[in-house]
């Protein structure tokens, strides 16, 4: 929800909103993951098994984004929100 917040309320462009959102998510995850770890809910091996390959993905994803128009980024983001909404309703 950080990306649409930055775009719709703070007037950020799509690229700036998604980049700044990643910085915010880094803070959230870096604080929340150890907190969940204290409750014994985090499986470090499984987390790294998914998270390390994802680093390659994020390099590709950010590079790909530079080739898209900001309008396309907004429309893709709207699609992501609709998918999540449908998942929640079902």
């Amino acid at each position, binding site marked *: *929800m*950080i*990306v*649409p917040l930055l*775009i*719709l309320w703070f007037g950020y462009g799509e*690229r*700036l909103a*998604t*980049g*700044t*959102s*990643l*910085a*915010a*998510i*880094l*803070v*959230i*995850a*870096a*604080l*929340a*993951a150890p907190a*969940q*770890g204290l*409750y014994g*809910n*985090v*499986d470090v091996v*499984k*987390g*790294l*098994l*998914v998270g*390390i*390959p*994802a*680093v390659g*993905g*994020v*390099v*590709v*994803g*950010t590079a*790909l*984004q530079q080739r898209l128009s900001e*309008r396309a980024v*907004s*429309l*893709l*983001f709207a*699609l*992501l*929100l*609709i998918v*999540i*909404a449908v998942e*929640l*309703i079902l």
Partner: protein
Amino acid sequence: MSELLAVLFGVAGGVVGGLLGVGGGILFVPALVIFLDESQLGAEATSLLAIIPVAAVGTWRQHRYGNVRLDEGLAIGVLSVVGVAAGVVVANTVSERLLELLFAALLIVVAARLVHRALQPREQ
């Protein structure tokens, strides 16, 4: 085999994360549940760990592209953590199904506004 699928979902989650500025949890959580036998709670907690390297490298790449306001991003992150703590208190007073439906409605409204805005003529 299931480990390989989890890795592929990890890569795909990273691509979506970089492309749209999200953590990638939308794909990490199902990968952990379906392929790595995590409970829903365990998967959501574990996905937070997977998000850390994604967000760190994604921020670094976008910073190189000139697309990050670091001060504001860090401030939003800290405020979100405070917001989440407050949200937990509220969430415990309302039924989970009602929360799901309210959040779904909010997402649809936001998606409609993004589409409406994207389709307006603008200077690129």
